[in-house]
């Protein structure tokens, strides 16, 4: 099995603050981390390697500093790391990024055929969830998004079965390899690498690919030029914090308290009330 995990280095958004006076984002001292959703993809890949053997390659497109994220991934136990970095890539949107990563994966595939590509379900700094599907489309990989569990991979039969979180339940899906999976949060917990893994990561040479090494064919498709997305405005949403409501409660009389709570809630959300009333009416009709 050769599994490629695409990760992104992002600023730790939990530590980003907006300056109260100037309203600008204060990035100073905010540490860069691996996009938290990508950790689930890394762990899923490592678990598959534990089970089936093979190799896990981590891949990222980013500035030279992104090497730290790749080294971190190696310290969890990934085998190989590739940083695709080129000044031309600056300003790439999701379309351009998926083009670059798809080209790099194609190059990796020539070295060692790729069976599975994993990513997080989205990034915390872009929140688009577009890059994974973009890669799958370009490489004609089977696409499985929002996967909560990889049930089984059968390398001989070239098949994979996963559980996918969907509205209203869990879908069990099976498809062929090669495939691309975007992993849902909470699906696993990243491991604590062993001492030898950390030594290996500390000494590892992360491979750096520029546009040529990555096999980019059309440079008009990368960077700002290749990015049709326009960010028209960035603003700080006004805070939605509201005071908590307090409702009196008599422990001897839970029904009354529940009713009071419901009344308050329904008064707050008239749409829900209307729906409930309609349902009730419909149910009532049936009873008659």
């Amino acid at each position, binding site marked *: 099995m050769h599994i490629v995990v695409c990760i992104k280095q992002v600023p730790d958004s939990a530590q980003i*603050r907006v*300056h*109260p*006076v*100037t309203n600008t984002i*204060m990035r*100073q*001292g905010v*540490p860069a981390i691996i996009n938290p959703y990508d950790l689930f993809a890394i762990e899923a890949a490592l678990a598959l390697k534990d089970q089936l053997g093979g190799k896990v390659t981590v891949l990222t497109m980013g500035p030279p500093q992104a090497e730290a994220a790749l080294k971190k991934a190696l*310290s969890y136990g990934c085998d190989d790391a590739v940083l695709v970095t080129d000044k031309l890539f600056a300003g790439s949107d999701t379309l351009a990024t998926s083009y670059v990563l798809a080209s790099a994966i194609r190059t990796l595939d020539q070295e060692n055929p790729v069976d599975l590509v994993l990513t997080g379900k989205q990034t915390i700094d872009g929140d688009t969830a577009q890059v994974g599907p973009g890669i799958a489309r370009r490489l004609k990989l089977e696409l499985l998004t929002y996967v909560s569990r990889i049930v089984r991979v059968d390398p001989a039969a070239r098949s994979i079965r996963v559980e996918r979180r969907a509205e209203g339940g869990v879908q069990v899906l099976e498809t062929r390899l090669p495939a691309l999976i975007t992993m849902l949060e909470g699906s696993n917990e990243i491991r*604590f*690498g*062993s*001492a*030898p893994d*950390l*030594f290996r990561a*500390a*000494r590892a040479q992360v491979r750096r690919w520029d546009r040529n090494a990555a096999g980019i064919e059309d440079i008009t498709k990368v960077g700002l030029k290749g990015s049709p997305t326009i960010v028209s405005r960035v603003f700080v949403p006004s805070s939605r914090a509201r005071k908590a409501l307090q409702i009196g409660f008599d422990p001897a009389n839970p029904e009354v308290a529940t009713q009071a709570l419901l009344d308050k809630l329904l008064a707050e959300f008239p749409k829900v009330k209307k729906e409930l009333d309609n349902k009730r009416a419909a149910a009532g009709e049936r009873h008659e």
Partner: protein
Amino acid sequence: MTQNIEKFDVIVVGAGPAGNAAAYTLAKAGKKVLQLERGEYPGSKNVQGAILYADALEQLIPDFRDSAPLERQVIEQRLWVMEDESYVGATFRSDRFNQMPGNRYTIIRARFDKWFSEQVQKAGALVICEMTVIALLRDESGKVIGVEVDRKDGKIYADTVILADGVNSLVASRAGLRQDIKPAAVALAVKETVFLPRETVEARFNLKGSEGVVIEMLGSISQGMAGTAFLYTNKDSISVGIGCMLSDMKAQNTTPAELLEKLKTHPSVAPLIAGGETREYAAHLIPEGGYKALPGLYGEGWLLVGDSAGFVNAVHREGSNLAMISGRLAAETLLELGEKGLPSSAANLARYKARLEDSIVLKDLKKYRNIPETLDSQRQFLTDYPALLNDAAHEFFTVDGRDKASKEKAIFNAFRERRSLLGLLGDAYRLWRATR
């Protein structure tokens, strides 16, 4: 399957100033050095904002000013003796002192430690973060031969282990190399970084370019406990903090957070930090037991450097410089042994202690060896005198109907009432003794 990690000449535990100085010196001399740090990166665990004394670093990296992340060169030192609503202060600002190259700088430790670690890595040491040393490995004779870390297959061997793991040095305590620190030998300090626009910092402190100010404070702000407070200017932030002996805090049942809140609302401090956004609250212990509280500094195969050895001069708020000097001296001792082909036995490592005795590390700690006890038993230095001084200034500067001679007499009487004539003389003597 266990994978073996190869053996090193030296393992340095901790990547603060002490560990970095040791690892840098050894790696530069071609030793095979492994440095382990429990934080996510060097500096991530270290209290923000501090004074860097240039000399100790200059001895290691003479051109550090070209690349180190320095915040401001300290060109003005203020000392404030405080009462609840006032202070009496002294200021030192001198063109002679402020000539380049500077003698002291404000730094943000997280950034500085990271930079220092990069120099260590460039010098050739292998630095691994997020690895916590949990125990020392020993051979049958009891000699330390390596460390064990908190990860699978985590036994790593070396000829010598340098413990630079800071004030708590759990490793040393657990291995029985030193006792747990006593509350009376350690201060608990809290510190906050208050962010303000650069221009505001410069306007409030009358600074230009990269000039900076340090204010040291003592008096009523420590509520009778042995302690001091400080305020430093960084580029676009201000570090403000206070530290008191842990034993005092316990006795008075105060928390450092309460002390800091009070300090920040003091009428002399509040306007300096007004309107800023507070980030990076941190609490940290400082070993302040001084010379008399020092543990054994070396043994079979191991050495203690920096805070883990208790090298802090509380009176002058010097810690990181003593850490760097002791780290360098430990490294130089090992290099000397290496040249002579001698093993890291306790007898040979005694040379480390001799080097320390010869440096400001032990010379200064020895000079101030009686300070902790004096302050502990003679609280008037922290309570009566600051109050008297402020009252005296109030009296002295109030121009009213009374003549100057009567004013001076009133001031003197106030001192005598509170401390008695003999008490005053005794205090002068005690203070003189404590600093001999």
